[in-house]
């Protein structure tokens, strides 16, 4: 197959295909922007310590998040975090118009194309669309760098527009994302290419195993091991290898995330079984069977949302820890009051990132819900024709979304919070003597008089267990549920159009 033929066949498609290509390109562009922003932040050099700047801040920036070397890693991480829901959106978009594409690819197979060739055609489509997106994202990034380079009157910059991310890293993002997208497409297409007749039959599937629970436990254990491992080295007056502790956290977060997302498949199946046993109405029966037939649909649909909620709950846990530390400092009289509000401000930024993630994940959710309805339009139209009220179908869609979403959201929030609790112990302080001088600035400041007015007080040992941030977690849960409800609501608008009698005419 020549590249020309490959390109021609990859482009032959319907309007749904065009929409999918456009959305794929858009998600790729968004992911590129987020990735490049993270790389730029990481490219900010840390100046050598000087007398006036012993903490090695990058003073050319107005924003504290950019100045402090210790915070830049977190900022870059938050930016990369934004890529997760964007990739989720891209994954959902890949499913858009999938039945039509599956049929087209199946037709290519019947025309004599090998499974390998068909996979290459589809992968080429996704890869090219993503490349379009990354190139566009790169262009927007470069233009944005130039446009936003606005030094203030004191010469300070609001954004790190004075540094370039390393060219190899930029290249890796611009080429790696399309490559990744193409590989994912090839993996997702395994089912279609195995048979030239496309996926027309649905047989009974086996119930999923509860192995994701094990993954979640592994993730929690890795996080909980963070402190003991550090202490173990400390007791031996040794430094842990620099890769060890970050690896613990990254592996733990990955395991927990994959566990929660895959666990949604098990939750869907279990919810379906319960609904089937106890549901009385036809809507519950329809939803129950859908859930048990394809339990992984929930995993695919909610993946981005759940990932965002895990991070959100983690952030809530960190905020609770900050608040507990502040409380402790108040009680023991230690710490710097000024930095408290700064850290809380940084947490607000993280919360914002989570909110944006939930919104983007909601977009992916919508695509999935609409796609599910459009795929089943013939069966739905036939049901409506035989007198099944549209409201019944709508209720079944609601059941089908909420039954797995409610426990999955709860699970995601619990896991996210518990991960953080595993790393941070309850802040404790006190248990030591402290010199107190309460004779005023002049007397205490003078070394000659100071000793006379100084007394030693015993600061009692205090542990401030952080409050479980119920309110914030509830907000996240509400936001997640609202995203689900909203998307189902919008999906129901498509239900009417998809159940017109015209759908029965298309054979």
């Amino acid at each position, binding site marked *: 197959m020549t590249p020309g033929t490959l390109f021609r066949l990859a482009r032959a498609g319907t309007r749904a295909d065009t929409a999918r290509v456009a959305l794929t390109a858009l998600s790729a562009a968004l992911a590129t922007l987020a990735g490049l922003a993270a790389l730029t932040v990481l490219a900010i050099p840390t100046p050598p310590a000087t007398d006036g700047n012993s903490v090695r801040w990058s003073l050319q920036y107005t924003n504290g998040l950019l100045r402090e070397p210790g915070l830049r890693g977190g900022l870059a991480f938050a930016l990369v975090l934004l890529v997760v829901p964007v990739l989720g959106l891209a994954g959902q978009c890949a499913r858009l118009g999938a039945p039509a594409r599956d049929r087209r690819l199946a037709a290519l197979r019947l025309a004599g194309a090998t499974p390998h060739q068909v996979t290459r055609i589809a992968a080429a489509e996704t890869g090219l669309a993503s490349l379009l997106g990354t190139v566009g994202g790169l262009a927007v990034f470069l233009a944005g760098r130039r446009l936003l380079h606005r030094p203030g009157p004191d010469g300070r910059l609001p954004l790190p527009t004075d540094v370039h991310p390393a060219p190899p890293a930029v290249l890796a993002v611009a080429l790696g994302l399309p490559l990744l997208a193409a590989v994912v497409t090839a993996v997702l297409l395994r089912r279609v290419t195995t048979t030239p007749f496309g996926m*027309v*039959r*649905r*047989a*009974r599937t086996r119930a999923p195993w509860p192995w994701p629970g094990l993954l979640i436990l592994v993730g929690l254990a890795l996080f909980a091991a963070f402190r003991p491992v550090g202490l173990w080295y400390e007791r031996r007056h040794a430094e842990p290898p620099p890769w060890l502790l970050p690896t613990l956290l990254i592996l733990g977060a990955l395991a927990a995330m994959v566990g929660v997302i895959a666990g949604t498949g098990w939750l869907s199946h279990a919810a379906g079984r319960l609904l089937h046993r106890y549901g*009385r*109405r*036809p809507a519950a*029966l*329809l939803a129950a*069977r*859908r859930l*048990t*037939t*394809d339990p992984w649909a929930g995993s695919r649909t909610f993946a981005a949302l759940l990932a965002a909620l895990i991070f959100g709950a983690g952030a809530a846990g960190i905020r609770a820890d900050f608040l507990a530390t502040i409380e402790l400092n108040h009680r023991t009289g230690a710490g710097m009051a000024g930095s408290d509000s700064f850290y809380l401000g940084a947490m607000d930024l993280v919360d914002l990132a989570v909110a944006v993630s939930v919104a983007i994940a909601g977009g992916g959710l919508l695509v999935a819900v609409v796609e599910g309805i459009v795929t*089943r339009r*013939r*069966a739905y139209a*036939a*049901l*409506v*024709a*035989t*007198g*099944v*009220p549209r409201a*019944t179908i709508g209720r079944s869609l609601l059941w089908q979304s909420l039954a797995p979403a409610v426990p999955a959201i709860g699970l995601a929030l619990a896991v996210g919070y518990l991960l953080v609790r595993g790393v941070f112990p309850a802040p404790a302080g006190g248990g030591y003597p402290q010199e107190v001088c309460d004779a005023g600035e002049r007397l205490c400041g003078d070394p000659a008089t100071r000793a006379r007015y100084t007394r030693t007080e015993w600061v009692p040992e205090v542990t401030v267990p952080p409050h479980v941030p119920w309110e914030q977690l509830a907000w996240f849960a509400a936001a997640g549920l609202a995203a689900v409800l909203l998307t189902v609501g919008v999906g129901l608008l498509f239900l009417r159009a998809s159940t017109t*009698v*015209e759908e*029965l*005419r298309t*054979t």
Partner: protein
Amino acid sequence: MSFLQARGVVRAYGRTPALRGVTLDVAEGEILAVTGPSGCGKSTLLHCLAGILRPDAGQVTWRGERIDEWSESARSRLRRTEFGVLFQFGQLVAELTAAENVALPLLLAGTGRREARTAALTWLERLGVAEVADAPPGEMSGGQQQRCALARALVTEPRVLFADEPTGALDTLTGEQVLTQLVRLAREQRTTVVLVTHEPRIAAYADREVTLRDGTVDRSGLGLDAPLPGGHR
């Protein structure tokens, strides 16, 4: 009182007219074939008679009541209580088992799960497909699926059964077996049948035949349209 009738029914899809004023009477207990070449409007007429589509003009009356003026939900209720509908293919819910598919109309009517399942099994038995009761449609043959769909259409013991090319997707022998069962059961239960088909051999299962041509009833006698050589579609 008339049973089911259409009076000057007009219906278009966008700017393409499908029915240009069809008047037709369906008598209680009869098996009526509606025939005609592709695109003559026979499926549209069935949809109008069954209250699935609302005509643009004209009337559809059921036992003297104008169902074309009824609300969507009222017509929905009529379709799932008094009417049964059978299409060419693809009407079963892919995720439900055969028995659940058949029980669905009963569940919608508020029948208990156990009772609905018993009735569904009885009907599957009667149509000779009891062995696939707990299989999803994906695991059934075309003939089994269509028998299952017929069971679903008849489980509420409807007054009228609307069948739109019910054997169009089946081979000749299976199609004839399904039709034979349909006709026998309809006569047994005194169910009226409106059968849409383009094949004279299928239309011969009816007591009476009405032919449509270009959206109107063909009264020239030219009507009785046979299909192109080679049979269905």
